[in-house]
């Protein structure tokens, strides 16, 4: 707009006098220097290790591992490679982390909202929960669940038996395992169609509500579709699913799905510990929403539950999400305390046994650190995307 504001013509300016070019150049130089320093450190480390007779390199990943692992989400036995043990450990870490994040979020939200309840007993109970749990070291809580609680379950022979289908003892919880037969693909396909239908109905109902104000019983209809469609396919294809029950053979139950006490203890401890922090985050998030919002909603005649769900929480999320992300990151990293009770996570299996059997500490530790870094960055990324969605849109 204002021509006199633009700087004088830069034709005779040298590129090194241009602040933009200069700062770009400095950044490139900085990156190169850091990269070079990192590379030569690594190089130097490997050379020194070589000269001291310590094997280096990543060749060991292809060698046969030769040790057993109690729990694996992918097929594994001792004849497979060290590289495979990495994946077994990683998946176990991801499993307990994912279970922990879900449970911690649910418990955390419930307790956080309960803290603000107008019911005195509920509010005080929530307070006691938070103040107790978050002030006891996590490792102690893991030991508590493992040694104090789960070890007191009955022994294998005295298992708790629920109708010959579920069994519970100090070696784990045994569930029936679904075994699919041919034709089960149709059931899955019809489930996918049902999900697509439900999404469509939801959109249509919303549009109609906006236009005409008419409500549609979306939930009930969706539920019916989700059950009826795959159910029908299941019957038509001749019930292509059987359940394998666990049964006592020799020392232990075999067959079925086993949830080992190490997983359960770690899961309980991680979820409850992290939930106590999430509860505080949720509480502060809710308190950050101005009272006027609630009062306005009340004036419109909304129910307290609806106010919480539709007015307060969506606005509170803006305050909640960033610290919630840190809690998720903490949970994932804390899951490495697994080794203390023998849950075969990445640190236990890969940085534990694999490192020790191969002796390749530097490589294994480097890989493990890179993995935790990647997981953490991914979580941050996802949460940032979500945060952008819930953040205040300036209009």
């Amino acid at each position, binding site marked *: 707009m204002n021509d006199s504001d633009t700087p004088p013509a830069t034709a005779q300016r040298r590129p090194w006098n241009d602040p933009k070019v200069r700062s770009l150049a400095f950044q490139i130089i900085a990156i190169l220097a850091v990269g070079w320093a990192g590379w030569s450190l690594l190089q130097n*480390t490997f050379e020194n290790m070589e000269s001291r*007779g310590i094997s280096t390199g990543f060749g060991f990943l292809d060698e046969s591992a030769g040790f057993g692992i*109690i729990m694996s989400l992918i097929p594994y036995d001792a004849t497979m490679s060290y590289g495979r043990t990495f994946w077994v450990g990683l998946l176990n870490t991801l499993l307990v982390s994912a279970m922990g994040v879900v449970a911690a979020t649910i418990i955390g939200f419930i307790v956080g909202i309960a803290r603000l309840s107008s019911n005195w007993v509920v509010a005080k109970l929530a307070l006691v929960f938070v103040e107790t749990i978050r002030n006891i070291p996590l490792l102690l809580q893991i030991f508590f669940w493992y040694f104090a609680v789960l070890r007191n379950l009955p022994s294998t022979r005295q298992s708790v038996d629920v109708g010959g289908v579920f069994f519970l003892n100090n070696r784990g919880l045994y569930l029936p395992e679904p075994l699919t037969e041919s034709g089960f693909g149709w059931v899955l396909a019809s489930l996918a169609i049902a999900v697509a239908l439900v999404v469509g109905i939801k959109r249509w109902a919303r549009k109609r509500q906006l236009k005409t104000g008419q409500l549609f019983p979306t939930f009930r209809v969706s539920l019916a579709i989700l059950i009826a469609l795959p159910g029908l396919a299941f019957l038509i294809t001749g019930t292509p699913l059987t359940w394998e029950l666990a049964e006592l053979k020799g020392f232990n139950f075999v067959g079925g799905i086993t949830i080992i006490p190490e997983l359960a203890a770690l899961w309980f401890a991680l979820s409850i510990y992290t939930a106590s922090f999430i509860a505080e985050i949720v509480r502060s998030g809710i308190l950050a929403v101005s009272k006027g919002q609630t009062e306005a909603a009340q004036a419109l005649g909304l129910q307290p539950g609806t106010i919480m769900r539709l007015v307060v929480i969506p606005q509170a999320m803006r305050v909640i999400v960033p610290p919630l992300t840190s809690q998720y990151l903490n949970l994932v990293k804390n899951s490495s305390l697994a080794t203390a009770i023998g849950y075969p996570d990445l640190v236990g299996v890969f940085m534990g*046994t694999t*490192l020790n*059997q191969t002796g390749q500490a530097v490589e294994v530790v480097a890989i493990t650190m890179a993995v935790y870094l990647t997981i953490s960055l991914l979580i941050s990324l996802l949460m940032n995307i979500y945060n952008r969605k819930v953040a205040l849109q300036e209009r």
Partner: protein
Amino acid sequence: MKKIISFAAAATLAGGMLAAGSASAATTLESVKERGNLKCGVTSGLPGFSQPDDKGNWTGIDVDTCRAIAAAIFGDGSKVEFTPLTAKERLTALQSGEIDVLSRNTTWTLTRDVSLGLNFTGTNYYDGQGFLVRKDIGVDDAKQLDGATVCIQAGTTTELNLADYFRSNDMSFKPIVFDTSEQTVQGFSSDRCDVLTSDRSQLAALRSKLDDPDSAVILPNIISKEPLGPVVRQGDDQWFNIVKWSLFTQINAEELGITQDNVDEMKKSENPEIQRLLGTSGDMGEKLGLSADYGYRIVEQVGNYGEMYDRNVGPDTPLGLERGLNALWTDGGIMYAPPVR
């Protein structure tokens, strides 16, 4: 917390390797002498092998092996600083220079000897892996263990032997892997596992720690060879020789009948072998870089191999282990040391 320690050990290793110049300045012997004590890596507590009492005094056959080295260097077997290490931490601790010698029931294997930059100096206990089971499960042979849940300690040869043994016998098992022997025993005694497996000497030690040792038995099967001995870093031959020959000296002393009690008398012996060992003739000590009477000091302070064995793990101790393979070659065992000459 152990995890943090082992991580720290790995990190120091990496750090040390970064900094290490081509030739390290001082030899291990020089730095030990300058420091005034020997840094010796041991277990965090295994009766008979290395175990601290409530005043922090360490005892055990692995502890005495270190004391013998200190006696050879300083003429004083008490100049040792013990560092408790879990199985997972021990080798990194030695590689990174945190300790001068590792004496922690460590099995001599090809991989450890060849690819870790370490050297085994000998064997102070010939062992083999076995199984400890509760009496009430009614098992009297390892071949009956198909499907059993097994407690093991992480970072041991035990983990590999176990998988090999079950696989070659077409049996399945469920391993529960703990970081410390404390937790491993707890896992076993609280019925998380049917079986605890380890070297048989350690089973005897761990069994003695149970509330009711008679409730468990060690099965007769021996499924592996576990020669346990001291380890040093590669690349310092003088240090390697000192550690190696202090154990050999103890074994030779037993063979020659030199004991803690008669060692002063033996100094007057006419037997040239005894003279060389005790340093009353020859320059054996000098060749090693030690004082002439290093052999005398070892026996005077720690005793010969047999005394060390009987005191810590022998039939009169809670472990109650017969000499067996660990008897001298002259007594039907395989304990044998090259001559001092």
